[in-house]
């Protein structure tokens, strides 16, 4: 029920953030702090893995949008891994599928990143 957030950085300089649990008005501050913290440490290419997210509300969306704004200020990127229909639906309803790159797996996102370089 609560939120677990952890991260690691790949050798191609992508920081993957694993999020597990419910991202809601109660737990979103934790994710927000993590994103701010990473940007402060100079990590500007973020990939949020949402596969273990059980619940996401608009507060969580707001935090992701906020993170995107932060990394963009440094020419960075914030992309998502998400295949769960119930979570994707929320991005779709709010039109945010057009704002975030959404991938089926961490590997897909890394592949895409290599292509763009």
């Amino acid at each position: 029920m609560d939120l677990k957030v952890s991260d690691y950085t790949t050798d191609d300089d992508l920081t993957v953030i694993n999020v597990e649990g419910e991202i809601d008005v109660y737990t979103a501050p934790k994710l927000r702090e993590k994103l701010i913290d990473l940007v402060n440490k100079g990590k500007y290419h973020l990939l949020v893995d949402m596969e273990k997210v059980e619940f996401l509300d608009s507060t969580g969306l707001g935090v992701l949008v906020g993170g995107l704004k932060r990394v963009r200020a440094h020419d960075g990127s914030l992309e998502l891994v998400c295949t769960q229909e119930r979570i994707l639906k929320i991005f779709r309803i709010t039109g945010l599928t057009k704002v975030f790159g959404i991938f089926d797996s961490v590997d897909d996102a890394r592949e895409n990143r290599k292509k763009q370089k």
Partner: protein
Amino acid sequence: MAPEIAPRTATVELTFSPLPVHVRTARLVATAVARRGGVEETLLDEVRLAVGEACSRAVEAHQQQCPAEPVRVELRDGADRFEVVVTDRVPNDDPAAGGTPEVSPDLAELNGNLNLGFAVIAGLADDVNISSTPSGVEITMSWPAKKD
């Protein structure tokens, strides 16, 4: 209570101090009562999310303007609809006008764009009504329910 309640409608009402943690309690209760009220399993996710959004919005409004006042959620288990009414006590706060001007940018970010919350509610509830009255904002949402 609102005048439109049919006499045989069973209701559950939850009031809570405006704290984010209680939004979870509201989600929990709304989902449980909806399930028992005959709302289909496939719709319960929508009930959970929409009720959470409406409560998050009310909690945020109360925290800024009247932290001592509770937020109210009424669950009406009617004949063929399951209805949820979330009421805040922030007078003349026009929710659809988009954002409260006094909010610090950080808090606004944290709580999401208010319109995102409304977008979610509008996208999920089968039927939504938002009314802004002198005593507060009332969001009424409903879903079909089967009785057996």
